[in-house]
């Protein structure tokens, strides 16, 4: 079981961690049970990993995931997208069966 980040996403995360003044902190990805299609993603800074967390690393960035979320996120790759009017991190999750119209929440 694993999650990962693309090089672009890791580079952006590194910039943001540096800007925040915590270059050594980890990034937490997870799920929460809300939204119009069941589940939605969480993306946060993680200063203190929890006991139940699993840790991964992509391109020098530490990623932490809690055990429950990992069941759903297994195989997920976090990418970063940027264009003139929108930019942000994108979850590419092979387990998603359907998502709501806006893509913000999903079902597995």
């Amino acid at each position, binding site marked *: 079981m694993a999650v990962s980040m693309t090089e672009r996403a890791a580079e952006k995360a590194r910039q943001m961690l540096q800007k925040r003044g915590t270059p050594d902190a980890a990034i937490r990805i997870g799920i929460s049970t809300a939204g119009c299609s069941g589940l939605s993603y969480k993306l946060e800074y993680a200063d203190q990993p929890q006991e139940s967390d699993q840790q991964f690393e992509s391109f020098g960035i530490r990623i932490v995931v809690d055990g429950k979320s990992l069941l759903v996120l297994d195989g997920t790759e976090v990418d970063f997208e940027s264009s003139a009017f929108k*930019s942000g991190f994108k*979850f590419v999750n092979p387990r998603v069966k359907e998502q709501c119209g*806006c893509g913000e929440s999903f079902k597995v």
Partner: protein
Amino acid sequence: MDFLLDIAEPGQSAAPHSRRPQRVVGIDLGTTFSLVAAISSEGEPLCIADSEGKCSLPSVVHYGDRSTVLVGEAAQGKALSHPQQTISSVKRLMGRGLQELQSDSQQQATPWSLLDGEGGMVCIGLPERVVSPVEVSAEILKALKLRAEEALGGPLQGAVVTVPAYFDDAQRQATKDAARLAGLQVLRLVNEPTAAALAYGLDRFEAAAERQGLFAIYDLGGGTFDISILRLDQGVFQVLATGGNSRLGGDDFDQRLSREFFSLLGEETADPYRLQAFRQAARAAKEALTEAEEVTIALPRADGSQVPLSITRSRFATLIDDLLRSTGLVCRRAMKDAGVTPEQLQGVVLVGGSTRVPAVRRYVAQLFMQEPLSDLDPDQVVALGAAYQADLLAGNKESELLLLDVTPLSLGLETMGELVEKVIPRNTPIPTARAQEFTTFKDGQTAMAIHVLQGERELVSQCRSLARFELRGIPPMVAGAARIRVTFRVDADGLLTVSASEETTGMEQSVAVKPSYGLSDGQIEQMLRDALTHGVDDMRLRLLHEAKVEAERVLNALRAALQQDGDLLNESERQQVEASAGRLLQSLLSDNHEQINQQVSRMDKETTFFAQRRMDRGIKAAMQGHHIGEFA
């Protein structure tokens, strides 16, 4: 659709569907071109281009067979082959009535027929159907909305749409209706010149102490001209004055050049294809003359052969000189309205593609005695400012900026004698609310007609009627005792609501003023000009009407008194009083307010004894049955 996330602080991930920022845009719905802009990933306003990289969408809509609708360049391409199904410059028809358009000498002939539509609004007759200007504008807005939603990655939450400073209530309402029809939530309508000032960040202007300053926005587009004088105070904008001419722009430059070409060739034509070809050549020559001192253009002769013609920048400047001077006239008037001199202006902003013409820049520099600001693309400035404003209104950015606009014409009420009482004067910052008290004219009057008018003149017939309604249920009282409070409210979009209430009973009536059709800019111009030139005449008329109203009031009172207490007079006294009233009636036939006023005061003197006796009788009646001691 992919959903994009930001990294949040621990435990602060937002609930789904509540994440900011809101997707909002600014839209410049122009006469010839329309644009849409939004705040980019870099945090700056940026125009959203189509798939070919073009930002400007021609404001042209083609209604094809089998109910297909084309917008923009695709529609423009049909203008020559299907002129009756291809609508351009629809902005000129927004919120206007058929009669009004037909009486407007500046209205150009259109290949499609104009019909009388719902609520007095004009409609456009196409071969297979009838469309309203609101529907046509909605097609343009839909195309921009679609483009924006693709670029921003989701449905729009709102839009700021710009309108010319001179748009009246009906035109603003029509613009709002078009946006709603296109599925856009209008956060606010903003005057185009005001949006331009925002794009230049004049609100963040640091050069002057305490962020204060005066600015002029000179906007010369394809078919319209607008000038605004803005004041920045403590970072807050206020529009001091606006002015304009909706029939002046770069298209007129093209026409002047095109006419010059025909006269150089010594010919004329009515062939639409050749006229179009000459117009296109004129436009190309105009654009080339921005860089070059002289250009040579190949023009088609009637026989199809090509002939080269040369034109210099200075000749072009001569051809448009009178057009520029007419903008100067409007600018000076706006400065006068604002009480501002050119020396006091901290900056002048150029807006509109036509301000690229060197002769225009030179003229503006001379007019305002300073070099105008022109760093931003003058075609995009309005849309960029609208996007900035939309971002603020959506709460995406914290700012103290408050945007104020003004009323283009005074708003008032009809009072006795067909006079107009101004409640909100011209150039009052909006939103605003003002109340004025009125009273009844006759004894026992139980209703009052409220007639809302727009304009600068003194008489009802010279102003434009916006709405009428009646306040009923006023308790019967003697004339002058009722207190009717009439409140005018103009919201942030410039739309007017009038309410009237009777203070003693709390009876209230109100009406949202949605005029059946709008005033043309030509009419507004004319009304303003008339107000200036007829100022003295108007005042004389006003005095005359006031004198007549007063005369009628005292005659009414005398008539009532004679009926009630006529027995107090002997026959000769009665004749004396009636003669006095007769002289006053006679004087009403003259158009001399002084004579009327003289007769009013003469009658007042001549009937004093009668009033005295009535008063005595009143006192006696009050004391009847009481002993004098009770009053001591």
